């Protein structure tokens, strides 16, 4: 057994006991990255020096009996969407190549203050637009469970790095499923917190009313521990909620006896992979055995969620990405003559096809004459989707569904078919539209050995209960112990 096989909490216990040092753990990650990342390609850049400096500082604190947090010294990775002071941050885009931020994202600062060595920046779909990591301008990330397949997206570098045990945990962001879908495709746990639970300050914006950062780890307990460090009110984010942070680990082992768990009929659809459905159905039966009551529920506007999302998210993105103009930072088209060319050439060359597609779509949806028919209408349907959940959560404690309709698909399979790619988010994005918390927990494998994820959705700020529900299932299976084969 290698050091990198430990979970975050196991490592934290060894660090606390003085059995290993953070420097050893960090070096183990760096070594593992050297071994497997040429195959996985999860990392865009590794900050070896920064991580080791942080690790040694952590060891000094541990030695002095003065750890900064329970996870002090546990090395983690960051999706390249989080701004890191002094460390290049690109959001997977050519247009930000060479951009070195002058400040840390709030969550990055919180992790640094908690003493976690930050090993490096993880690959992602460009500006988080994608479900396969294939829209990254830099490299193709491979699923550790089958290297010919996608690790999911947009936080695919994060899911792959955690699944390949290159880091003990990572942070991702989720706008329409970008934490949960890659978690489901890589046998890892991913949590998208309630909108406003975790600060967005310093995170490169995709769709501001949907984006939310969250933990990606191998176990539910690790996710709870990592969430504990970042779930804070932030005075620099006006949409951050001034809600107290509960102890997410306190009731983790509380089980599901007596809970009412909703099973929305709209989430078991035609065209869904039968093995995925079978795994999820089996998980549902498991919950019944564990003492929960399954309740058949309906979220009638689910079928409109995809269309709603694909108007709102691109509209917000078209505005959020207007700042990439080659004037204050990032790449500039060097031969541009005049201001108009500077803008149009810089953006034409700096953005990849998926980003351009969404900017075009969003610009169109907001433009004169189309706003009411597209954007405003989508916002109204968004209200209906939220109300569906509000009604259901009057009756049940959480909602269970598959995370992704299919297991990891082949790299290259859907790149030229945007609509079929967009369908990958069909079960995850309603939760973003409603601003609710959702997580994905491993629930088995297909015959081909591809991971399947179970999605748990809950009421606003009910992350603790979601974690407890996920943990009740995890405890029965320990899928997380299974190492990814790293074969293609």
């Amino acid at each position, binding site marked *: 057994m290698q050091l990198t096989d430990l979970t975050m909490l196991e490592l934290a216990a060894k660090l606390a006991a003085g059995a290993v040092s953070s420097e050893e753990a960090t070096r183990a990650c760096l070594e593992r990255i050297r071994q497997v990342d040429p195959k996985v390609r999860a990392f865009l850049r590794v900050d070896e020096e920064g991580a080791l400096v942080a690790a040694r500082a952590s060891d000094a604190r541990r030695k002095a009996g003065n750890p900064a947090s329970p996870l002090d010294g546990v090395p983690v990775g960051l999706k390249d969407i989080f701004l890191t002071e002094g460390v290049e941050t690109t959001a997977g885009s050519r247009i930000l190549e060479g951009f070195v931020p002058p400040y840390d994202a709030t969550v990055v600062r919180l992790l640094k203050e908690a003493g976690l060595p930050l090993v490096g920046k993880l690959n992602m779909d460009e500006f988080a637009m994608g479900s396969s990591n294939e829209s990254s301008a830099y490299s193709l990330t491979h699923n550790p469970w089958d290297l010919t397949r996608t690790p999911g997206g947009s936080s695919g570098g994060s899911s792959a790095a955690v699944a390949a045990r290159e880091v003990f945990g990572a942070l991702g962001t989720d706008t329409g499923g970008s934490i949960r879908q890659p978690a489901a495709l890589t046998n890892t746990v991913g949590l998208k917190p309630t909108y*406003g639970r975790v600060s967005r300050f310093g995170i490169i914006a995709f769709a501001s009313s949907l984006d939310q950062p969250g933990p990606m780890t191998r176990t539910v307990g690790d996710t709870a521990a990592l969430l504990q460090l970042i779930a804070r009110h932030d005075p620099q984010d006006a*949409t951050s909620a001034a809600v107290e942070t509960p102890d997410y680990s306190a009731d983790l082992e509380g089980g599901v006896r007596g809970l009412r768990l909703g099973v929305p009929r709209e989430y078991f659809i035609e065209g869904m992979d039968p093995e995925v459905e079978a795994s999820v159905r089996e998980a549902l039966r498991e919950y019944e055995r564990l003492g929960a009551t399954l309740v058949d529920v309906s979220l009638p506007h689910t079928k409109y969620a995809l269309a709603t999302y694909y108007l709102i998210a691109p509209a917000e993105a078209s505005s959020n990405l207007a700042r990439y103009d080659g004037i204050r930072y990032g790449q500039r088209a060097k031969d541009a003559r005049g201001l108009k060319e500077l803008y149009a050439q810089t953006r*034409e060359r700096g953005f990849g096809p998926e980003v351009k597609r969404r900017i075009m779509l969003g610009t169109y949806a907001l433009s004169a004459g189309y706003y009411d028919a597209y954007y405003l209408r989508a*916002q109204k349907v968004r209200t209906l989707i939220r109300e569906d959940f509000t009604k259901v959560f009057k009756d049940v404690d959480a909602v269970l569904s598959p995370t992704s309709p299919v297991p990891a698909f082949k790299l290259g399979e859907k790149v030229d078919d945007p609509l079929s790619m967009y369908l990958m988010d069909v079960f995850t994005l309603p939760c973003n539209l409603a601003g609710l918390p959702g997580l994905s927990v491993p629930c088995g494998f297909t015959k081909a050995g591809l991971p399947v994820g179970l999605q748990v959705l809950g009421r606003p700020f009910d992350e603790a209960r979601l974690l407890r529900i996920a943990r009740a299932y995890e405890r029965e299976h320990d899928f997380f112990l299974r190492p990814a084969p790293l074969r293609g």
Partner: protein
Amino acid sequence: MALTLEQVRHVATLARLALTPEEEQRFSTQLSAVLDAVAQLQSLDVEAVEPTSHATLAESLLREDVTRPSLPPEKSLANAPAKSGTSFAVPKIIE
């Protein structure tokens, strides 16, 4: 709903994207397909529904009117592709 090439060009101008003719062609096809897919929203009666523009019910958070240190100009301009003194430089703006 089909998006004409002319519309694609207009939107690209608004978005400041110098699309190639191939891209104009491709986006016209692809965006038309997406617009067809989202057309299903038109069937819903949303006349009496309030729009949701924010996923948060958070009260508007305000800050005190106090100054905080700015960045030193060398940091503000550290990533600038072109600068002159402590200003960002752009091609001459013609009024």
